[in-house]
């Protein structure tokens, strides 16, 4: 007994130098130490995977007071090319999916976003939004996904036609997706704007490569996680972070991109996109006057903007001359 106590007292003196306090009943008692937060690495999203930018470059995202938020990938021309390749490879499968299936996937995206509401609100607040504004933006984003989920298998009925040609043919016109779309997302409404341009594009069967907001990049990267858990096939949406001014010209020049969407008011960029886009007759669409928070921020016409109308003819045989009198 005595030796045990002696050992105990000796141990105690040694131990005193450390932080561990031994209590009366011999149990270790940790002082509440500050738990180290695991910082998130903000990577880009290509082909359903989360690579870093192949350039190895990064920029520092800060809030308006200059507080560092994250090291964000400064995506490169090669990232764009890889993403476009992914989007092109994904187009055949995505456009061949049943419209209903696309609707189910968009709805699941809404479910996943709803489940992560707190995370998105937190990120928006880190990027200077008030709690009320952040919550509003996230709510609207979820509802917007649900809105477009519902349109997936209905816009065709609104925008198709059976044409009463004068000759003996069956003739019908239907919308088909245009293909691979590259998008410079709204730089200000970094979550709602992003969702508002992606949803109609993929609801219509297209695949896309999107450059998120430079100043507020956190949401677009986290949104990739929502996409990744939504059964959305890899490559349908590819999300890059970086400088739109650096990447847009490469996108405009790229010969395997069918359409470009640009959401900012810069006239020089709009001109540049249309000039370079002419190289392969890209459809260049500018959404610089849209208030994404209003009803004008969603409509089936956004889907239709990225559709091509195909008209099909087939003869109707006229044999015998007999007709129905009933």
């Amino acid at each position, binding site marked *: 007994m005595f030796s045990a106590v002696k050992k105990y007292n000796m141990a105690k003196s040694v131990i005193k130098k450390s932080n561990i306090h031994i209590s009366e009943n011999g149990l270790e008692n940790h002082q509440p130490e500050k738990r180290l937060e695991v910082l998130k690495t903000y990577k880009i999203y290509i082909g359903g995977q989360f690579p870093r930018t192949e350039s190895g470059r990064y920029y520092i995202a800060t809030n308006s007071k200059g507080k560092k938020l994250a090291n964000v990938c400064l995506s490169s021309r090669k990232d764009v090319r890889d993403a476009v390749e992914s989007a092109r490879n994904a187009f055949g499968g995505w456009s061949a999916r049943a419209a209903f299936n696309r609707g189910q996937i968009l709805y699941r995206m809404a479910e996943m976003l709803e489940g992560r509401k707190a995370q998105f609100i937190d990120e928006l607040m880190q990027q200077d939004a008030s709690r009320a504004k952040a919550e509003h933006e996230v709510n609207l984003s979820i509802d917007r996904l649900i809105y477009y989920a519902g349109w997936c298998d209905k816009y065709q009925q609104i925008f198709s036609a059976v044409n009463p*040609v004068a000759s003996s043919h069956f003739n019908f016109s239907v919308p088909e997706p245009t293909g691979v779309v590259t998008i410079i997302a709204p730089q200000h409404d970094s979550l709602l704007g992003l969702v508002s341009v992606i949803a109609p594009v993929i609801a219509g069967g297209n695949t896309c490569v999107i450059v998120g907001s430079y100043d507020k990049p956190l949401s677009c990267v986290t949104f990739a996680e929502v996409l990744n858990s939504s059964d959305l096939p890899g490559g349908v949406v590819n999300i890059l972070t970086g400088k739109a001014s650096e990447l847009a010209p490469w996108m405009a020049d790229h010969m395997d991109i069918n359409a470009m969407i640009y959401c900012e008011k810069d006239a020089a960029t709009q001109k540049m996109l249309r*000039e370079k886009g002419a190289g392969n007759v890209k459809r260049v669409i500018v959404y610089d006057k849209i208030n994404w928070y209003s009803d004008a921020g969603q409509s089936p016409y956004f889907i239709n903007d990225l559709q*091509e109308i195909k008209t099909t*003819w087939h*003869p109707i045989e006229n044999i015998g001359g007999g007709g129905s009198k009933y």
Partner: protein
Amino acid sequence: MAKAKNNTLKLKFDTSWNFAPAPESKSIASIKDKYDLFINGAFVKPSSKKHFKTINPANEEVLSEVADANAADVDKAVKAARTAYDKVWKKMSGKERGKYIYRIARMLQERAREFAVIETLDAGKPIRESRDFDVPTAANHFFYYAGWADKLEYAFPNRQAQPIGVAGQIIPWNFPLLMAAWKIAPALATGNTVVLKPAETTPLTALKLAEIIQEADLPPGVVNIITGAGATGAALVNHPGVDKIAFTGSTDVGKIIQRAIAGTNKKATLELGGKAANIIFEDAPLDQAVEGVINGIFFNQGHVCCAGSRLYVQESVYKTVVRKLKDRIETLIVGDPLDKNTDIGAINSKQQLETIHKYIKIGQQEGAEMHQSSCALPGKGFYCRPTLFTNVAQSSRIAQEEIFGPVLTIQTFRTEDEVLEKANNTPYGLSAGVWTDKGSKIFNMTTKMRAGVVWANTFNKFDPTSPFGGYKESGYGREGGLHGLSAYVNLI
């Protein structure tokens, strides 16, 4: 009758089947020696004081002289269109607008024969085509859109359709009157006013249309027709008073226009070139398919953006199809467009004939095998025999580039996947054709061919109610039908 090697019978057309000439009379065509510009409801002299000749490509005779509009003339026309838009046309009810357009349609039908003859003289296309296709379809196009003028609130769910303003329209020489109708009718129906520039080799039917527009009492300035060449077109595209450009022509010029308007707020629709794949499966009704292929490439001398210029034949029926094609082209009569027997008329211009010859040479240099019919060609004028190329590679220039003439490239395939890949392997995407009796195969092909117009078991069919336009580098926007209204409205 001669027996061919594989024991089929073959008719000899060069002895028993000579047709006596059946020329359509020119007397109905009243063409003035000189035409001025149609601006603000009247024919006015060009500021440039210059005129240029337009000839009949069938015999190189001069038909008339038309004005060469310079930038000042373009400005005058655009201003007239703007005034007419602001003061009259924008304010007019759809109901009344429609009635003007109906008048134009009916007057065109009344004078159909005259217009058909003038179209044939100026463009070189066979009178059978002008008479039976170009003119009636043009008149019907006006008739169709006249009916939309007061029904626009039904056209776009949840949106009001407002006119855009002044439309600058540039049209090609392959269907001069029809293209004028395709441009003017929807623009007017939706409340826009128009400045139209016909192609420099085919101005006459547009100018005759101006006469009808005058007769119909269309308010001055609503439609202005200014003749000229590339410079006139450029001035029109670049004019700041034009709100919308509608262009039909080559892809190269379409890209130039896209770049030219890049920094402006001008809207545009482009209907550009094509290199359509026409696909024959082994289970196709072969005789019908051959007729469809012949029509697909030799209709209008092949001067058709949606011409079926690339034939893909399933290997198992290749020999049969090629034999039938060669037999059939022997029966095609290349000759005076005004003769009602003529199947293939004159090539529209010397320049275009040179382009076609250039491609025929390229094809031969690339190692393809050329076959032409053996028919006689008229001594004067610009003519080209129907031409087939076999042994063509997918990457051959003659298989990739638009020739715009009576030249058909022929390739083979084994499987659907293979032919789909080959058919879509082109920067163009205007039209495509498939011939097979199996319904499910039809829809597999039509859904997967990336083209704006897909013909199944038929080819080169058009209708005012049917939207026409391309994917990819064949342009964007549609003409015809409900979808043809979109190009000319702002939706609010």
